[in-house]
């Protein structure tokens, strides 16, 4: 197995393909040349910065620095999970709920994988911890976002049914159960689809990357399976925590539906 090192010229050559996109945009008058250029430049700048940060991080191997980077990543994931929702909890809960669920699920699953399966030395080694957390985080964020979007988006539409149950003396857990179930299902659909299609529809990026880097494909497949299970576990925990906590905030201790705690519909 060999690892082929890339030069900047190789990358520049690949970037020439963008001229095809630009040409297409000009020919068809799509008006996307500017967006395309900005997106490409952003990608190059962001990845270069990430590369430099990771290089410095890997050289240091400090638990505090690793933890700080992980927290920043989780903070961004929490923001992204709630940013595009039609309705969300008002006040600090809006951002806090999704972020706390992601924080809980992703750190738990990442720490589990680092301490029991991968076991690098030290266990918090950023070379393993950060990419692993990133992969779990990306999927968990999507799941939490979809789950909460369903929960808060449909609560208003289902109000009559939920309040009919509450008015008849059902508990808030009973009244919100159909909505909670649907919301958890929504949050889990992407990862279930992704697991079912892996290897048939698409070769996962991490596995492909390892193979390109010269790793034995069987080893790369094992890593990919491990990652998929961690992602599925992390997403399930994150979605469940977020939706159950969200449903708790959507009701109160007197078993009332509290739509007033949601932001107005966008």
């Amino acid at each position: 197995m060999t690892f082929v090192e890339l030069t900047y010229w190789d990358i520049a050559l690949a970037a020439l393909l963008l001229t095809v996109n630009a040409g297409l945009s000009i020919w068809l008058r799509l008006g996307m040349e500017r967006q395309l250029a900005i997106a490409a430049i952003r990608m190059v700048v962001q990845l270069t910065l990430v590369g430099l940060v990771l290089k410095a991080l890997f050289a240091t191997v400090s638990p505090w620095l690793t933890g700080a980077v992980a927290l920043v990543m989780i903070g961004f994931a929490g923001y992204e999970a709630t940013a595009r929702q039609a309705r969300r909890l008002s006040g600090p809960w809006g951002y806090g709920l999704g972020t706390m669920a992601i924080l809980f699920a992703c750190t738990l699953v990442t720490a589990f994988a680092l301490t029991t399966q991968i076991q690098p030395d030290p266990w918090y080694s950023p070379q393993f911890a950060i990419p692993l957390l990133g992969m779990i985080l990306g999927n968990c964020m999507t799941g939490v976002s979809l789950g909460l979007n369903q929960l808060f988006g449909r609560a208003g539409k289902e109000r009559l049914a939920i309040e009919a149950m509450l008015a008849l003396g059902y508990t808030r857990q009973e009244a919100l159960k159909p909505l909670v179930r649907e919301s958890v299902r929504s949050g889990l659909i992407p990862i279930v689809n992704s697991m079912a299609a892996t290897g048939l529809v698409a070769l996962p990026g991490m596995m492909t990357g390892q193979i390109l880097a010269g790793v034995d494909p069987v080893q790369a497949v094992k890593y990919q399976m491990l990652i998929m299970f961690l992602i599925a576990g992390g997403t399930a925990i994150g979605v469940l925590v977020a939706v159950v906590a969200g449903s708790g905030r959507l009701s109160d201790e007197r078993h009332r539906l509290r739509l007033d705690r949601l932001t107005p519909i966008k």
Partner: protein
Amino acid sequence: MGDVARTRVEAAEAGTALLWVRGLTRAGLEPADLELASGELLLISGPSGAGKSLLLRALADLDPNSGEIFLKGEPRNRFPAPQWRRLVTYLSATPGWWAPTVQEHFRPEDKDIAAGMLARLGLPPQAMEWDVDRLSTGESQRLALLRALVQCPAVLLLDEPTGALDAKSTAQVEDFLRERLANGLAVILVSHDRAQGRRLAKRSLVMAKGGKLSEGPP
């Protein structure tokens, strides 16, 4: 009357009335006082948007509210909320349904009793198997009333329960309510139908715009 004496009188009233309410308020509602005896129907009328439904919802504790409420001498906060709502049950003008068929909306122990009462509301025996999607507004209102009554609440809070019914179905619902009133059920009825109020209620309250309650015509 001094404050202490009045407190004593009110405490005695709270013990004797089935439902005793003082200073019940929430956003959009002036503090409301009312009492209700067992077997009594109290009519609440007033213009649309005055807050009649808000008052019923506050009584059922479905929205944040404050005030003193006693049921059979017991303060509301001594009851867990679900138990309170089984005893003081609110029925919305637009009933909600949460499962595909009618029978799934009844607790297992109530299904047979409910099936036996269908005819009293002018509904056929197979109504329990109906899909809720195909219910007409009138059928939905009557089945929702049955769903609430079969749980034997002490107080029923009815919000325009016959708004979508024809004269015959309205009469059936009223007969059914009279029978339950004779058995001790107490009802607070919000209705725009003055004739219905005269047929069923001996006492009425009027809610003005802004949510202020006052004695209505007998």
